[in-house]
């Protein structure tokens, strides 16, 4: 069974997106990156990110990740912010009672985007 199926598919993403986005917007380390952003559109992007991290279907390339975050890198986005997002992802999945070994797999997928997101 794939990670995406095991974790619960689209319903799991839907359950996670509000919890995850709330954590991100309340996190003093990273919330300023979301100032002035349309919350509805941003929630869709969070959903696409979670779908990917859960091993679900996506068509993001490393190049998309670089382009999509370049304006944030210019504003100082660095490893500490990436770590904060990773922490919020783990806390979200823990809150949803996702088993530890699945959380580790999702975290590994998210972690694999670090270089592209940070433009390294």
């Amino acid at each position, binding site marked *: 069974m794939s990670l995406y199926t095991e974790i619960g598919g*689209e319903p799991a993403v839907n359950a996670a997106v*509000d919890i995850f986005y*709330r954590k991100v917007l*309340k996190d003093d380390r990273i919330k300023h990156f979301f100032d002035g952003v349309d919350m*509805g559109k941003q929630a869709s992007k969070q*959903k*696409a990110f979670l*779908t990917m991290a859960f091993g679900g279907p*996506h068509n*993001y390339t490393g190049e998309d990740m670089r382009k999509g975050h370049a304006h944030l890198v210019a504003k100082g986005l660095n490893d500490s912010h990436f770590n904060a997002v990773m922490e919020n992802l783990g806390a979200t999945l823990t809150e949803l009672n996702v088993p530890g070994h699945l959380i580790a797999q999702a975290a590994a997928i998210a972690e694999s985007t670090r270089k592209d997101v940070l433009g390294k």
Partner: protein
Amino acid sequence: MPTVVYGGQSYECGEQSVLDCLTAQGVPIPSSCRSGSCQTCLMRAIKGSVPEKAKAGLKPTLAAQNYFLPCSCYPEENIEIVLPAEGMGKIEATVASVEYLNADILGIKLHPSKPLTYKAGQFINFFRDAATARSYSLASVPALDHELYLNVRKVPSGLVSGWIFSNLKAGDTVTISEAAGDCFYVPGKPGQNILLIGTGSGLAPLYGIIRDALLNGHTGQISLYHGSYNADGFYLVKELQKLEQYHSNFRYTPCVSEGEAQKDYAQGMVLDIALADNPDLSGWRIFLCGNPDMVNAAKRETFFAGASMNDIYADPF
């Protein structure tokens, strides 16, 4: 084989998704994930209907207007589709009446020259001339009102509102657009609690949405908070109080932000009062209209108070 009409051309998609089919033919459609998640490729069916799977994950108000994701759409019947910004045709309307609702807001009733399909709470564009238009929300409910009803606030040196205030009279012919927007009531979940927060003429869509919800037999609590600097800013007060008398699940709270506390009004900023009365919004449906700063703060605060992002509807005007 079903055909897809876009931009006056016919396409046959075969085994491909509508998005793959169009882009393979060189038609530029914005897209990103191409797997039904990011909603970048959002389009709308104006003829025929698309399979439910093509609407998965969309806000109910978008699905109700036949929006869909072409990347997840494998049509089973002939459809005609447009991009979201297209399809707002213009129509003529006759002004039926113009009346002052308070010193700064006019109530305007319009007879469209042909039937206009809309939902209470959507907006139309009102044209002063071909190049100058402003969006106004609809306070009328199609099943209850014969005319379109707008509340127009006088904006200092406003090109369209200034012209409306000084020139518009009953009998005039004006140009408006068809209705658009996703701030409206969708039937289903009749027991869900609804919170509505508006300032100034942001009351217009909320007044339509409330009456639409009640007409549909909504049984959950429906709580309206209308904010104004002072008591002179309130309007439709008698109508709202009457709704309160007839419907025990509807509550109307006018909020005054400046000056002394007065009987009949809550004292303070409308968002603060609404949140203090309703601290846990888990499972609620939220409608926000009016001042953009209030609307943006309210989106964040109602989301933090537990409302799901998919249940928050807003118009920043």
